[in-house]
C-alpha cells in the first residue's frame, strides 16, 4: 500500500507542477493546492501507516496498550493543512482581485513589472 501512496504523492507533485506551469492563474492555484496536498501526504506517510488505531488513549487507560498511529506527523500535517488554508484562501482571493483589476487570467499578460528595462 505504501508504494501506491508514494505513487500518489509523486502524482500530486507532478500534477501540481504541471498546473503551476500553465498560463492560467487559476490553474496555478490548483497546482499549488495539489503540491500542498502532496507534501501533507508525504509527511503523513513518514509516520508510517497504521490501520485502525488512532492515537487516542482509550477510556480507563493511561497509556496505550496496543499499537497506535504516530501522532506527531498527524499534528504536523494538521498544522500544515490549516496554514495551507490561510495561504490558499489568500491566493484565491488574490486571483480574483487580479482579474477584477487587470481583467485577465493569463499569466503571460502579467509581466509589466518584469519588463520595463
Amino acid at each position, binding site marked *: 500500500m505504501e508504494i501506491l501512496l508514494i505513487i500518489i504523492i509523486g502524482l500530486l507533485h507532478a500534477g501540481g507542477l504541471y498546473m503551476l506551469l500553465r498560463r492560467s492563474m487559476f490553474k496555478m492555484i490548483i497546482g499549488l493546492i495539489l503540491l500542498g496536498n502532496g507534501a501533507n501526504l508525504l509527511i503523513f506517510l513518514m509516520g508510517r501507516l497504521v490501520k485502525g488505531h488512532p492515537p*487516542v488513549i482509550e477510556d480507563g487507560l493511561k497509556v496505550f496498550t496496543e499499537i497506535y498511529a504516530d501522532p506527531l506527523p498527524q499534528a504536523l500535517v494538521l498544522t500544515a493543512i490549516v496554514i*495551507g488554508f490561510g495561504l490558499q484562501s489568500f491566493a484565491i482571493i488574490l486571483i480574483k482581485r487580479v482579474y477584477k483589476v487587470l481583467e485577465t487570467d493569463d499569466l503571460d499578460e502579467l509581466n509589466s513589472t518584469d519588463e520595463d528595462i
Partner: protein
Amino acid sequence: MIIAVLSGFFFAALLPLLGRFAKKTIPLIFSLLPISLFIFFLFNLPVIKNENTWISHISWIPSFGIELSFRLDGLSMLFSLMITGIGALVFTYTAYYLKGHPYLDRFYGYLSMFMASMLGVVLSDNLISLFIFWELTSISSFFLIGFNNEDASSRKSAMTALGITGFGGLVMLIGFVWIGYITGTYSISELLSKPELLKNHIGYPWIICLIFVGSFTKSAQFPFHFWLPAAMKAPTPVSTYLHSATMVKAGVFLLARFTPILGDTLLWTTSLITIGAITMVYAATHALFRVDLKSILAYSTISALGILVFLIGLGTEKALLAATMFILAHALYKAALFLITGIIDHQTESRDVSQLAGLRKVMMPVAIAGFIAALSSAGVPLLIGFLSKEVMYEATLQFGQWAVLLTLLLVLTKIFLFVAGFWAGIKPFAGTLPNEFQKVSMPSALLWVPPLLLGTLSLLFGTFPIIIEQALIQPVVNSMVGKENPIYLALWHGFNLVLLLSLITLVLGFILYLYLKPSEKLFLKTLKFEAVSPENLISGFGNLFSWFALKWTKFFQNGYLRNYVITILAFLTFLTAYTLFGGVNIYIDWNQISTITPSEIIVVVLMIISIFFAIISTSRTTSIVALGVVGFANCLFFLFYSAPDLAMTQFSIDTLTVLLFMLVLFKLPKNKTLSSKGMRLRDAVLSLLFGTLIAILTLEVFEEPSGSEVSKYFADNAYLLAKGRNVVNVILVDFRGFDTMVETVVLVIAAVGVFSLMKLDLNPSKKD
C-alpha cells in the same frame, strides 16, 4: 599626526553647519587648514632628517590587525608637504576663482576631505587604512570632478574616473589582503623589515599585478590613462590639485612605497619600465595633438606619470633619486601651469592654445610665472626641472644593455614635453594680443600669486639644491632604498654625455616648438585612430558587457512565471538527482510495505482519476469539484490510517476552499487553452520527472528505519502529564502548542489580507 590627517574630515563635516556663513564672508578662512598643516609638516622636517621615521599608532580594529597608524618618513614627508603646500595655494586660489559660487562651501568641503584622504594615503602605516584613504580619494575626486553637476559631460567624466580608479582600488585590495594573509601583518613598517617573505611566495607575481592595477589606474598609466583628460572637466583648482600634483601621484607613491618590499625583481622592473615607457611616449605624443590647454596639460601629466613609473621601474638608487626630484619638480611646474591655465580661462574664457597669444600685455605676473614653469618643465638650467632631468638621464644611461633604448625614449618624451610645456606656459603670452583679448583684465592677486610662488620655488630649488638636498630629498631616497647613501645634487657635473643629452633635448624641443603649431586640424586627424584607443576599447568592452548584462537579465527575468518555476525546479531536480544518483543507496524493503485491500485500491483509483480530472478538465468548476474529490480521497486515506482529526480538518477545510473557489470564480473570464501542444507535452514530461524524483526520495526516506522517540514520549505522557487522551490534540495544544498559536496568527493575517484585498482598492477609478 592622527589629528593632522583627520582634521580635514572634521573640517568637511563642519561645513554643512558653518559653511554658509564662511563662504559669504571670508572664504580665505578655509585656507587656514592647509597652511597650518603645511607648517606642521615643515616643522617636523628635522625629525625626519634625524630619526628617519616617526610612527604613531591608534588601535582601530585590533581583531583584524587594522590600525590607524601613521608613518612619517622621507617619502611621506615629501608627499605631505606637496599635499598641504600646494593645497594651501589651491585653497587660496579658489577663494577668488570660485568667488560667489553658490556651492563654494561644498567645494571646500570636498577639497579638504580630499586633502585629508590624500594625507591618509601617504602617511598610513597600515595597508588596510592606506586602502581606505585611497578609496576616499577616489570618492572625493568623484565629487570634485562632478562639481559642475548639472553638466552632463562633467557627470560622465566623474563616472569614468570613479569607475577606473574604483576598480583599480578593489583589485589592489585583493593584493593587500593577500600580503596580509602571507605575512600575517598589514603594517608597512613590519613588511619593510621582512621583504623576502613576499618575494619568495608563490603568489608574488599575482600580488604585484594586483597592486600594479591599483597604482596604474590611479596614476593614469596606459591603458587606463583616459580618465585623466576627461577629468579636466573639473574646475581648474581641482585639476591642479588632484590631477597633476597629488592624487595621480598616489599610484606612484604606492610603487615607491612598495619598492623596498616588493621591488627589485625582474618582473617588477620589466613591467614598470614597459608600462612607464609606453605611457610616457604615448601621452607625450598625444599632448602635441591637442589645442585645449587643459588637454595638453593632462597628457603631459600622464606622460610625466609614465616617466615616474618608468624611473621607479628602473629601481636603481639613481633612478629613485631622479623620481624623487621629478615628483617635486613636476608638482611645482605643473601646478603652476594649471593655475595659469585657470587664470587664462577665468579671464578670457578661452583655453584654445591656437587662439591665445600676447596675454603678457594684460597679465604680466602671470606671464612670468608661466615662463618660469615652462622653463622648468623644459629642463632649462637653474630650474629644478633641469636637475631632475639630469639625474634621469644618468639613471637610464647606467641601466645596462637597455640603456640606449631607454635613454632614447626618455629623450624623445622630454622633447615632446618641452613643446607641451612651452605651449602651456609661454605660447599664450607670446606674440601680439588679438583684438578679442584686448579688454581682458588683470586677475586678482589671489589668482596670480600662487603660480608665481610655485615658479619662485622652482627657481629657488633649482638654483640652490642644497636647500632641499639633505633636508628633504635624502630622507626620501633613504626610505625607498632602505640604506643611507648620501646623495649629491649639483648644477654642474662637468661636460658629459648627460649634459649633451640635455642640450639635445633643449635644442630639438625648441626647434619643434617653433616648427609645430598647435592646430585643430591635427587634433581632428588623430581622431581617426580613436577607434583603437584604449578608451574606446574599454568602452567597447563596457558596451559588450552591458549588452551581455541586458541579455542575461532579460533571459532570466523574462516575465513568465512558468519559466521561473521551470528554472527553479530544474535546478532542484539537478541538485537532488545529482546527489541521489551519486550517493543514495536505492533499495526497497518489502517487509516495510503493508498489503493492499480492495477499498484502498478504490480510493487510490479515485484519487488518481480525480487528480487527472482536476488537471485536464477544461471547465473551472469541474476542476474545482475534482479538487474537492482529491481532498475527499485524501480524507479517506487519513481515515483508513487512523487519523480522524486529520480527516475532519482536511474535510472541513477542503470544503471551505472549494466554496471559496466557487464564490470567487464565476466572474473569471472563460477558460482558454493557452499553451501549445508541444509546450504541454514538455511540461508533462518535466512534471513527471519531478514527481518521480519526489516519489523515489520519499520511498528511500521511508525505507530508513523508523521509530521516533519524540512520538513515543508524546504517546506515553499525553495522559499522565498533559491530561489528555487524544494525543494529536494534546500535541497541538500542549506539547507543540507554540506551533498552533502561531498558526492561528497565520489564519488571522490571511483573514485580514482577504478582507483588505476585497475591500480596499486604491486604483484610480475609471471615473476620474
